[in-house]
């Protein structure tokens, strides 16, 4: 087995007296779709924020793509190849869909103030490439027609898709999705599933938090279950589903 893309070991995170994460270790392999589930308040989003640099872990080791990132800022991790979406959509509301995706290309482009001021050839080429690439991505996620619409005027489903396009624009190795199917109907969820499978087929590793168990079970190669900030199970969806600890976490156990 080759070296994992993301390796967390012994990650802990405290908020005041509250331990949001305790000794969480997990490995995400290259090219897999990795699901993260758990009851409300289990620490899924906290772990997600640690992975994407929004929170600094209190303790533990964080390795991504063969390098250690102990206290990295979000933009450093984005540079390294982790892109994310948000549970409550956080688009750049007053920019067009196209500009949103182009802003997502920030880490893969170089142009500075001088290039912009003097309209250097390299800058103009880069800008044209960015525009083309952004248009392509909008078509890829299926919202090409809305490229000049302000993000805030897009429908909910389109906003979810735009967030994915914006994340893909940074050419990530790991795409982290926080509840991508939240609020979607069955058809939209099915479309999302197809899209995610296609993204994986393009060689991007996907990590997602999801409440829709059907989606998780049908999509993920491996699933980890969090409860009270600890990882209580990990494995193929079928194994996890029959794991007594998981059933206890979701339904409550007899001895409680």
């Amino acid at each position, binding site marked *: 087995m080759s070296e994992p893309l993301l390796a967390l070991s012994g990650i802990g995170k405290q908020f005041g007296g509250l331990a949001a994460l305790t000794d969480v270790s997990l490995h995400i392999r290259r090219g897999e779709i990795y699901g993260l589930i758990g009851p409300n308040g289990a620490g899924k989003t906290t772990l997600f924020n640690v992975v994407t640099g929004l929170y600094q872990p209190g303790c533990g080791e964080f390795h991504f793509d063969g390098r250690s990132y102990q206290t990295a800022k*979000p933009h450093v991790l984005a540079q390294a190849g982790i892109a994310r979406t948000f549970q409550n959509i956080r688009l750049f509301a007053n920019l067009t869909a196209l500009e949103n995706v182009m802003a997502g290309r920030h880490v893969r482009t170089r142009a500075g103030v001088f290039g912009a*001021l003097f309209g250097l050839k390299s800058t103009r080429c880069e800008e044209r490439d960015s525009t083309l690439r952004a248009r392509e991505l909008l078509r890829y996620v299926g919202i090409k027609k809305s490229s000049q619409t302000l993000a805030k005027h897009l429908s909910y489903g389109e906003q979810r898709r735009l967030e994915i396009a914006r994340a893909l624009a940074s050419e990530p190795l790991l795409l982290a999705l926080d509840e991508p199917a939240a609020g979607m109907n069955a058809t939209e969820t099915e479309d999302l599933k197809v899209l995610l499978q296609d993204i994986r087929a393009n060689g991007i590793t996907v990590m997602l938090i999801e409440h829709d168990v059907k989606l998780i079970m049908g999509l993920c190669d491996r699933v980890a279950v969090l409860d009270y900030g600890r990882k209580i199970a990990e494995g193929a969806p079928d194994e996890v589903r029959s794991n007594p600890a998981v059933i206890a976490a979701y339904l409550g156990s007899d001895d409680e």
Partner: protein
Amino acid sequence: MKKLKFSKQHVLFSVLFVSVMLLPFATDALLGRGWVRIVDFAMLYIMLALGLNIVVGYAGLLDLGYIAFFAVGAYCYALTGSPHLALAFPLLFPDGLHLSFWIVLPLAALLAGGFGALLGAPTLRLRGDYLAIVTLGFGEIIRIFMNNLNAPINLTNGPQGISRIDPVSVAGVALNTTQQVFGIELPSVHLYFYLFLSFTALVVFVSRRLEKSRIGRAWMAIREDEIAASAMGINTRNLKLLAFAMGAAFGGVSGTLFAGFQGFVSPESFSLMESVMVLCMVVLGGMGNIYGVILGGLLLALLPEVLRHSVVPLQQALFGRIVIDPESLRMLLFGTALIAVMLYRPAGLWPSGVRRRELESDEVAP
């Protein structure tokens, strides 16, 4: 179809260009020379508003002390382009340091930009109201420094200000004199008008280029959602500092021009009220939209003068005496205008929505 639109734009641009070039002559003929001077000041305000637009309009950082950078630029030239330094360092500069305006200008822009970054650094974590309070404090600190740095060494001459600042000269021609060009008489205010016009054009050019660049998009991303921006790999710290520095540099340039034009600077030109005025120009005109900001700057710079020249004669004609002081009436109208704009056009008089349509027509063309 496209060709037609293109030529239409050209015609519009040419008409605009010619009318702006003739503006000082028209103003002079219709309203008198004093008004040309007022238009000159309006140009300075427009430059300031465009500089602040980078900080507030693009990067979304509320700055209530912006006039401080104008002050830095103005004092830069006041100190290095007047006999004043002879007072502070009589042995070193017996006649004062009379540096050329064109040497001081880039230095002042750099220094003001440095001050911008200096203000930006400790406020990186602050947003909205809190940032506004700190920047307000910064603006006052600079003004109070200018007011009090006449002891132990008389650096700024305190509240009396610095006078006898050298005029700006272009290609050896001092702009404070009347010149003959092709038999056309160009008084000093006209000359300064064209100088300010070219600087304003430069500032507009820089703003436009930045707006449509990777940097501009990153600024707007920060304005819209800082957390999402950093998750997209935007180094929010560096870009916010850059926005502060760029905005401040524009303020510095404007200040240097002000000092050369006015020939005199004193701390009272840089009060909090001025910062508020410049901010109002940006907000009233249309945050983030260059043309809106120009409109806002022009309106708010001219309004007090229009009032001054109309209210007093009007009241005298009606009542035979002055009932309401034009200065207080100005604030009344000003407040009313702001409230009206916030109620009916919250995005400003000329919001950047115009640009959307522009983009849309681009989309259809290729």
